[in-house]
């Protein structure tokens, strides 16, 4: 962030901080929704989601730096985002096709190796990509006077993407291919007996998940203006996983709510903590323990917020009659 920001009035600083927080919540929601597609609806245990986020971010950053200057900014933005998505999907194909025959823990180990591996290899190899590098601003030059505009623009983009992904998942789960995914998740063999190709169905879901994570990574690269390997460490995967478990495997609204809750409490604790800014580590562990005791299926389980409200209303109506 440039120095000019420090001299801005408090109200603007607060706005800046808030938009930044909401954008990050949105990106986490995208990551969690896409992981939920794989782990929740698809019932595959993947621990490599940060790898796809990384590939998307680095893919987009690399292409942005490599493209000649002077092209229209919006065009560069869209192209590089699609490229980041493509790179992440290619990564998904690379790890998914050989590994999706694995089950449970084995798949988790393989994907974890992938997620950590791509980051370590790319950040250590000399592939014309320095380990961390700045991403040229393509939409417009940012300075302290238009920083808020810039953030609001990204806020809009992220909200649009979250809405898009929510609609995509909702429609997919209700489609024939989506139901096939649910069938395969529950009983591969029975699904195979009905003419569904279980591996094909799983690969498709895995690729959708990795593509969305890649897109989130690409948007992040453009938003932050720089990418560095330390932004994509395993702790990121832990956070996404925690959001998915907290929100409920197979719940869209749970996922978004959990992304918000986790981010808000983590920030809050960071401020209270002062010297010990690592309070989130305690929080995460505590959340997992409490979750396993009180709500092992997440806040809503596989249900949605709307289902919960409907049930609650029905119960209240029944209660007032009695």
């Amino acid at each position, binding site marked *: 962030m440039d120095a000019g920001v420090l001299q801005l009035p408090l109200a603007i600083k607060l706005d800046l901080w808030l938009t930044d927080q909401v954008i990050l919540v949105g990106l986490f929601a995208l990551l969690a929704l896409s992981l939920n597609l794989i782990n929740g609806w698809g019932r595959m245990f993947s621990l490599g989601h940060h790898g796809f986020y990384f590939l998307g971010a680095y893919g987009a950053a690399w292409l942005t730096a490599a493209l000649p200057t002077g092209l229209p900014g919006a065009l560069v933005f869209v192209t590089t985002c699609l490229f980041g998505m493509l790179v992440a999907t290619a990564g998904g194909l690379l790890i998914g096709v050989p590994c999706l025959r694995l089950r449970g823990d084995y798949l988790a180990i393989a994907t974890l190796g992938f997620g950590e591996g791509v980051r370590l290899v790319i950040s250590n190899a000399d592939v014309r990509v320095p380990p961390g590098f700045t991403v040229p601003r393509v939409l417009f030059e940012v300075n302290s006077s238009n920083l808020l505009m810039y953030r609001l623009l990204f806020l809009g983009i992220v909200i649009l993407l979250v809405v898009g992904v929510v609609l995509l998942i909702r429609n997919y789960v209700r489609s024939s291919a989506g139901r096939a995914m*649910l069938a395969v998740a529950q009983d591969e063999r*029975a699904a*195979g007996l*009905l003419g569904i*190709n279980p591996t094909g169905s799983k690969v498709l879901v895995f690729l959708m998940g990795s593509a969305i994570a890649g897109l989130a990574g690409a948007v992040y690269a453009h938003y932050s203006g720089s990418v560095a390997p330390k932004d994509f460490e395993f702790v990121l995967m832990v956070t996404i996983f925690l959001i998915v478990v907290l929100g409920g495997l197979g719940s869209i609204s749970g996922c978004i709510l959990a992304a918000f809750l986790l981010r808000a409490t983590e920030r809050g604790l960071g401020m209270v903590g002062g010297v010990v800014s690592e309070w989130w580590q305690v929080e995460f562990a505590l959340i997992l323990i409490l979750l396993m005791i009180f709500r092992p299926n997440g806040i809503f389980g596989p249900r949605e917020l709307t289902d919960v409200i409907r049930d609650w209303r029905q119960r209240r109506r029944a209660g007032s009659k009695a």
Partner: protein
Amino acid sequence: MLILEDVDVYYGNVQALHGVSLRVEEGEIVTLIGSNGAGKTTTLRTISGLQSPRAGKITFCGQRIDGMPAEKIVGLGIAQSPEGRRIFTNLTVRENLQMGAYLERDKSKVRERLERVEALFPRLQERASQPGGTLSGGEQQMLAIGRALMTGPRLLLLDEPSLGIAPILVQEIFREIERINRELGTTILLVEQNAHIALRLAQRGYVLETGRIVLEDACPALQKNPQVREAYLG
């Protein structure tokens, strides 16, 4: 229609089927009886492509199908209602049935099949929007058979449709199996531990013992066979 010739199947190093040969003709109901662990389920799994034979040949309507993946074999017209029903508990009854028509792109055909299956098992229509997991064992069995019929099969493989089901429902289910054969013209290969009821329904039968076919005959003859009477009809 379906011919198995000298089929050997192994699980790892353990041989489960020893040179199994059998045939099913178009329009027949054929039963495969035998005790636990005789290889009945393995035989059906091998026909459906969930298990590959190490030796031998399987042909369906003149086409080799051994070694084909399960989803291809379904497309050729062989459906299986698996042992233990294996319905999708998290999908509704209607969705379970629709999953059966996964390969059928023609919507009007899917609707036609759905109507036929629901006419056959009216309970499935009554419970269409319930999650599959809330059905009773007998209803789940109807759902598993209905789901297999939704693939539009020419040959239906039924694995232990009487297993763990109330006797009164077993009667009902077997009446429906007969109707499927008579009214829809679907050929049926029935695997059963309950030899009484299987031999009454089928026209021909095979007796499987520790992975080998030891007897084959028309069902009335099998019912009178002293060996069968002693071992399976008690």
